[in-house]
Each structure stands twice: as C-alpha cells, then as structure tokens.
C-alpha cells in the first residue's frame, strides 16, 4: 500500500486522507486478508479512481463530440466549461448562495459563454481551415482563463462533498460517496442526452445536421440555431462535470487545459464523433491513468493519455468505434 498511497494522493488528494485515517484507526480491511486479496484491493482502488476521473473525461469528450458532429469544429475551450462550472459554484457558494442554485447559475453562465463563443468567434470564421479554427478556440480558451483569473482568483478551490465524506468500503478498497455522484451524474447526462437526441424533434434536428448540414438546411432545419444549441449543450455538460468532480479533484482557473486534452484524447480513442465511443474512451483514459499512476509512475500520469492516443491513432486511426474515412479527391 505504501507505494500506492502517494500515487493515489496525486490523483485524489482527499480520498487518501480517509484511507490514512482508517489505517490509524486500526480498522483496515486490507490487513485482514492475504497477499492476493491485498493486490485485489489495490486493483479495485485504482479502478474506482480511474472510473471517477474517467467519468469527467467522458463528459468533456461528449461535449467535444456534440460540437464536432454539428460543426466539424474541435472546441479547445471545452475544458474551460468544466472550470467555469466548478469555480462558478465555489464563488457563488462563498457569496452565500445555496448549492443547488449556485450550480444552476454556474451552469447557465457556462452555457452563456458557450453561446457567445459560437456567436462571436466560430460563426464569423465559418469556412476557415482546421488550423485557424484550432487557433480560434485555443485563443478563446486562453481568453476565458485570463478573464477567470481576474473574476475569480489564482488559488485552488474545493467544494464540500454533496453527501458526506465517509468512504464506503467495497472489497477491501474504499470509494467516496462523491465518486457515485460523478459516475451517476455522467450516466444520467448520457441518458438525458440520448433521450434528447432520439426522442425530441429538436434533438433529431441536431442529428440531421450532424449527418449532413446541407441536406438538413434543405429540409428546413435552422442550422445556425442547431450549432448554437450544440455549443450551449456541450458547455452545460462540461460545467455539470466540473461541479460534480470539484469536491474530489479541486479546481483552479487553469484546470481546463488538461481536461480538454484528456477529453479530446478520450474522444479520439473512442472514435471522433461517436458519443458511445466518447464515454468508453473517457472511462478507458481514466482507468489507464489510474493504473499508470498506481503501478508505474504517478509523475508521468499526464503522459498516459497521450501515449494511449498515439498508440490508438497509429494502430487504428479511426478509434475504437469510429468509421473508416476515405479521402475523396
């Protein structure tokens, strides 16, 4: 366990303190069982951590997918919505707003930022090259971080856990109640998004636009509105993810960059543009990172995602669930 603790500590500052406290209190499940069981407990602990961060990566990847499908734009500011959700809630709660309202206002703020981004930066640059669009959204990301450090501050912040901090023991490992919030929230959002896309007229308009923009326009779908909707929705999904995970991983004005990169890695591993791929990819990246940190090196856990995408891209460039693309001349 000794080698594992610092590794997990990097991943989850809080959780380890609880594990440590349990060690001291003497009711340590790990010690009652044999060596094989201990290995199993370690493994399970890493699975829990991996699934929790992975759920957030999945949400960011889902946001990428939504925007990419509707507009062929990779929005590098996607991770900053996670930050806006977390930081906004932290500061609203500090101002005395109750948690549910703080969350609501923070998510609405993120949606507004997403809509403004679409209206002021993406819409005017329609038809620009991928490199130009990359630079525009990276510029937007830098701008959002720049404004966030003025509006908020440059410190790390946390939120109180939604339903207590008593870790729940499962098979010798422990899991924080907040992890259930994160994973459950992710599943609920995915299900909600599926309902929206498959069961509502507006959702079907989004799908139609993703399938073929010109054809969608020809059947009377207002493509501009659909694109704005995609940006707003992806912002909301990212912000909710940020709110859910902040009690575990802390937040700061610049956490968006790594969330964006790993969310993108997740979307790519799963196959760009495939929502199920995004979720599976997110969980996979989270798990690989946790195992990398636990068994190999916690210092290089941020490199895991990139090594993973390099391998996936080179072995199967279309990702796990993507369609093979053929370049037309």
């Amino acid at each position: 366990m000794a080698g594992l603790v610092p590794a997990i500590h990097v991943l989850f500052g809080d959780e380890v303190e609880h594990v440590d406290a349990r060690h001291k209190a003497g009711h340590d499940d790990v010690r009652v069982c044999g060596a094989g069981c201990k290995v199993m407990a370690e493994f399970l602990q890493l699975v829990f951590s991996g699934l929790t961060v992975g759920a957030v990566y999945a949400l960011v990847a889902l946001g990428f997918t939504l925007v990419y499908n509707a507009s062929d734009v990779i929005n590098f500011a996607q991770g900053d919505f996670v930050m806006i959700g977390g930081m906004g809630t932290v500061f609203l709660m500090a101002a005395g707003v109750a948690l549910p309202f703080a969350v609501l206002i923070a998510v609405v703020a993120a949606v507004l930022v997403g809509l403004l981004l679409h209206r002021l930066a993406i819409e005017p640059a329609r038809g620009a090259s991928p490199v130009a669009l990359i630079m525009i959204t990276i510029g937007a990301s830098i701008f959002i971080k720049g404004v966030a450090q003025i509006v908020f501050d440059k410190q790390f912040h946390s939120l109180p856990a939604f339903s207590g901090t008593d870790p729940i023991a499962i098979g010798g490992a422990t899991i924080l109640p907040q992890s259930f919030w994160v994973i459950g929230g992710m599943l609920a959002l995915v299900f909600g998004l599926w309902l929206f896309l498959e069961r509502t007229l507006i959702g079907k308009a989004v799908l139609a636009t993703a399938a073929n923009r010109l054809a969608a326009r020809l059947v009377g779908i207002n493509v501009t509105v659909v694109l704005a909707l995609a940006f707003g929705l992806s912002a909301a999904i990212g912000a909710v993810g940020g709110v859910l995970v902040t009690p575990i991983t802390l937040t700061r004005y610049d956490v968006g960059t790594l969330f964006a990169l790993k969310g993108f890695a997740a979307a790519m591993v799963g196959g760009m543009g495939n929502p199920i791929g995004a979720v599976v990819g997110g969980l996979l990246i989270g798990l690989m990172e946790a195992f990398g940190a636990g068994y190999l090196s916690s210092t290089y856990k941020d490199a895991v995602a990139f090594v993973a995408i390099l391998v996936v891209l080179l072995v199967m460039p279309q990702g796990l669930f993507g369609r093979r693309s053929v370049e037309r001349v």
Partner: protein
Amino acid sequence: MLKTLLSSRLAVLLLLAVVIALVPVLAPSSFYLRVAALVWVFALAALGLTILMGYAGQVSLGHAGFLGIGAYAVAIGPARLGLDPLLSLVLGAVLCGLVAYVVGKPILRLKGYYLAIATLGFGLIVALVLTSEGAITGGPDGMQVPRMTVLGWRVSGIQTWYWITGGALLIGALLALNIQASPSGRAFRALHDSEIAAAGVGVDVASKKLAAFVISGVYAGVAGSLLALMNGFITPEAAGFMHSIELVAMVIIGGLGSVVGTVVGAAFLVVLPQALTMLHEYEQAVLGLLIMAFMILLPAGIVPSLRRLVLERVR
C-alpha cells in the same frame, strides 16, 4: 517591378539586416536591445514552424518542446557533463533533429486535428520530463546556464547577444528562403496544396513531411539554446504549452509562409507583453482576444495583407 522586389530573396534579407542594424541605433536603452534580441530568438524558432506549417502545411502545437530540448542541452551539457557550451549547442540541435525524426516518423501520418493533438502531446511530455527529472534539470525551479566561452572569450552582455541572435536570425532566414526556392521547397508546397496530387507527381510525401519536421525541430532547438545562453537561466516553462501556442500564433499572425511575416509576428507577440506590463493581470485575456481577433478578421496575416494592399495601391 515592385512585386518582384517584394518577393525577392535578397530584398527580404536586406530588409532584415537593415532592421537588425538599425535597432541598436534607435534603442534608447539596453532594455529595448534585450527585447529586440528576444524577438530575434523567437523569430528564429518560428521560422522553423514557417517551413513546417507555411511551406509543408503540417501543424505542430508542440514546438516549444524542441525549444526546451535545445535550452536544456546548453544547460545540462556544460553543468552536468562538462561539455563545451558551443558543442552542447550543436549536440542539442542534433538531438532535436533526432527526436523530431523519431517522433515525426509515426505521427506525421496523422492529419489536421489529429496531428495537432499528437504534437501537442509531444510538447506536453517534454515539459513533463523537464519538470519531473529534478536531479538532472533542477525541476520546476529550473537551472542556471553556465556562461559560454569561445576560444577564451567570455560571451556575455546584451550588446554581444543582440548581434549573435540577430546574426543567427539572418542565417536562419537565408536558409529558410533557400529551402523555399529549392526542389524540396517546391515539394513542400505541392504537398501543402494536395498530398494526393503531390504523391501523384512523384513527391515522396512521407519523407518530405519528415524532412520539414526535422528542419523545424532543429530551428526551434537552436533558438532554445540561444535563449538559455542569453538569459543564463532556464525553467521548464520554456517548453510549456503557452510557448507552443505563441510560436504558432507568431507564424499565423505575421502571415503563414512569409519569412518577413514570421519576424513581424514574433515582434508582435514578444513586444506585446512588455507593453502590457502595466496591465499585467489582463495579459492572458488580451493575448487570447488578439489570437481570436487575428484569426477571424485577418486570417491571411499582417504581412501578406499589407503586401496585397501596397500592390493594389500601385496598380
């Protein structure tokens, strides 16, 4: 006549040489000389990207990684291995070329967004290694770079470094212009326009892309070495994400594929933070806003847009 003058290689080099010679005359204090030297260094690094992005049409969001490798080569070589600083610079450049070859060979098969993310990941990993291997690199606090001595002459002082960096930029510009006019340069432009068409007329697409990537890596590495030697100190931030983005922004804001544009873009992005020191808090917000504004309003970049304006006037 004006058009041929504007696009001639000699005119570009002359223009650069005149500007480099004039700055010390006009600069009121050594502070301005220092800023100008920084412009030359970053312009040199960005010139590599001009070859990669502007000529060959391949994007890299991780070029600060090469900057970092070059910078740490002249810090680690003399301080930890007892190597001569000048030799370290050369070895750093060779190392950058090798790393670019090894990394570029697999990832240059990717295109567009995928290539952008893969290169971004490369830059991130270099920064991570430089930050984490504290025993060798001094960790996040960085390390001192020993002063360079060449044949017993101790290279120091901003005056000296101004001329060294200015000279390096001129050499870099000469090479870039020659590459552009060479058969390889034409092959680069062919694959920029259409890889399939380029392959169709017999361009070895993979090896040409790799060549452009290696050349651009060496440019950034040499610039990184000069930056570290000039500052006498280096931190892993040199290889950071923001630097990679700034390098790409220099190339695009100045004008993709234009040597003069690259220098203008570098000047713009190096001078801007100096001008904004009073508004230090807003620096990041302003930088982000400017990148967006240029991409949306002036996608061709400053120099090509100006050139078109001038040519239209004349006509």
